[in-house]
């Protein structure tokens, strides 16, 4: 196989795995923003919390990686409900500024708390045997963990798509994103709907955080470092849009991986170029409402 083509496939593969991580982590943020217009800068902190719970469960209590992932995302999802009811709910009608300040304050607090408890050194988890090494797909081999990420992402996308498009709850969410007041006046309990999506979104973020440990490395600064990326995915894709978030995650994931491969010095420059270009042409993102 020609060298260039081989590299191209590698970049595409890694970009796809990265995109799946971005999608899993950002989709909850997109839906909650679309539903309530709530700017949740603490979303990265929920993801980070999930990651650290996985680390602790796996290393301290010897629980396997996959069950640890499930436990972490369920725990974070449940705890986030309390955050939503107690803190966030008061701020739905507040200005953007107050929402930004509240949630960035929470993000700072969580970074400090996790630094205190876990220290600033990146953590790792023992992977199960079947996720290590490479997998042979006939024409070449790929890292198993990234292949697993892509498969998991595809499964989650399918499930989310089904829930969004085919179920009653999904229809209610779509209705509320489109026109909240109209949805309320036909009897949809938007507040409860929001609590539900917030919990699921935070749980998915925690799952993303757990998956990120072996992909990106997990330190307490994760909460703000990757938050900007999640926000970019949401803004570029369009708030509250599932396919927008997916498309944006794919574009950002592949462009970032390719850019870093071709021009290592440029760092994240290309992501920002793409973001600005998309937002200048389509201010509400790919599939957002103007």
């Amino acid at each position, binding site marked *: 196989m020609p060298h260039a083509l081989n590299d191209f496939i590698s970049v595409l593969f890694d970009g796809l795995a990265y995109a799946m991580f971005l999608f899993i982590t950002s989709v909850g943020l997109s839906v909650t923003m679309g539903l309530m217009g709530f700017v949740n800068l603490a979303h990265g902190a929920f993801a980070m919390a999930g990651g650290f719970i996985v680390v602790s469960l796996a290393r301290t209590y010897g629980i396997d990686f996959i069950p640890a992932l499930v436990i972490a995302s369920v725990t974070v999802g449940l705890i986030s409900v*309390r955050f939503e009811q107690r803190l966030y709910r008061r701020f739905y009608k507040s200005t953007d500024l107050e929402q*930004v300040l*509240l949630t960035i304050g929470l993000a*700072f607090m969580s970074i400090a708390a*996790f630094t205190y408890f*876990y220290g600033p050194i990146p953590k790792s988890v023992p992977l199960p045997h079947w996720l290590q090494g490479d997998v042979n797909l006939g024409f070449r081999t790929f890292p198993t963990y990234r292949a697993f990420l892509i498969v998991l992402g595809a499964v989650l996308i399918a499930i989310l798509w089904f829930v969004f498009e085919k179920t009653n709850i999904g229809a209610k969410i779509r209705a509320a994103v489109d026109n909240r007041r109209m949805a309320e006046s036909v009897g949809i309990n938007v507040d409860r709907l929001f609590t539900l999506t917030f919990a699921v979104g935070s749980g998915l973020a925690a799952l993303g955080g757990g998956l990120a440990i072996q992909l990106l490395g997990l330190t307490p600064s994760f909460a703000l470092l990757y938050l*900007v990326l999640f*926000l970019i995915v949401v803004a570029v894709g369009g708030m509250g849009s599932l396919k927008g978030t997916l498309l944006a995650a794919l574009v950002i994931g592949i462009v970032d991986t390719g850019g870093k491969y071709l021009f290592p010095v440029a760092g994240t420059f290309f992501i920002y170029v793409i973001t600005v270009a998309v937002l200048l042409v389509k201010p509400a993102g790919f599939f957002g409402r103007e």
Partner: protein
Amino acid sequence: MSDATLHQKTLTARQRASDYLARRHHFHWAEALPWLLAIAAFFVFSNRMAFGSQVLIMIMFAVSLDLILGYAGIITLGHAAFFGIGAYTVALASLRLGWSEPISGIIAGGVVAGLAGLVVGWFMLRYRGLTLLMLTIAFAAMLQESGNLRSDITGGYDGLPGLTFDPLFGHFQYDLYGHTNYWYVLAALAVVFYVVRRIVYSPFGQALTGIRENVRRMNAIGSPVHWRLVTVYAISAAIAGIAGALFTQTNAYVTLTVFDFDTSAKVMVMLILGGTGRLYGAFVGATVYMVLEDYLSKMSPTFWQFGIGLLLVVAVLFARRGLLGVVESASAFRWRTGAARRRFVWKTEYWKALAVAAFDGGLIGFLIGFAGNLGRADRMSLFVSAFPARVVAFIALGAAAGIVINAVYLLVTSRSAVERPAS
């Protein structure tokens, strides 16, 4: 009410409004206070003047943010971009062009940053909300990345050390203790502040407040909203650039970290702490923040970061108008007395409130106890064996704290009358 009296009332209301507008830019005696304190600080803390200059620079930076955030209502998390442009303009002019005269240097920094603000603002300010927020973050990050791309010019993250600047007016040398710098920065701040004060109290400033309060209405009455926003954005960028230029000159050193997201977030925190849209909020906020940071981050950076976060959350929940707002409320605060005083009456819903507080307190206690165990267990297995007792203790402690805090809150709110000053 007859037409005549109604007419009379409209006239007096109009008169009062125009009197208010005509008089509100007059200097109040209390406005001399911050400046007198700044001068006094020179004599009291004369060995900490290098730090004093940094405080004054951050005040100027926060004032520039106040102009767009507090008055025009533009939310940005990328204001460090203009601070950095000013900082690098001076640094590169001195290093590559040999232009090291300080006063023309800060003017150049302000002009370059202002032009950047004009161009960028013209593009960005058509958008609002999340889109605008992302564009401001992206702009600062792009500048940082492109600076890193051409680190042969900018020095990258290692920075440009050893910058030299001419003596002020060709006469005043820079001393080790930063005495000259302090007066230099204070004078610059006074000039900038005077300009900002004029802008805020001008009809232009009034229009900005109108845009903040109700964009649609300003559009409807024919105000050129976009151009007003772009203008104030450029002015604010220029001031941030001047602050950045002063930053480079006083430190004789600059790195790409000036473009950090942290720089933008920090200046926002300062402004919120002091109070937005009130000119002197930036003074209080930046000073309190810098002094606290100086003390606390030396003791423990982790606790300091937690403290800022807590401060922000508390400020948003209980003191939306910043420290100056708290001072105003406190001076208007009084316990209800006499007839106005209500006896504290127990209501059944208080049970529910206390139970919820106990639950949340317990949850927080559980999280702290649990996280403490998990985090430490990596290092010490001792904590794992002591797991249940410790966690239970934390839950009990959290629940108790929740009940106490809630009880105090119930008592205070039932007994006090907080009168907000008319805004």
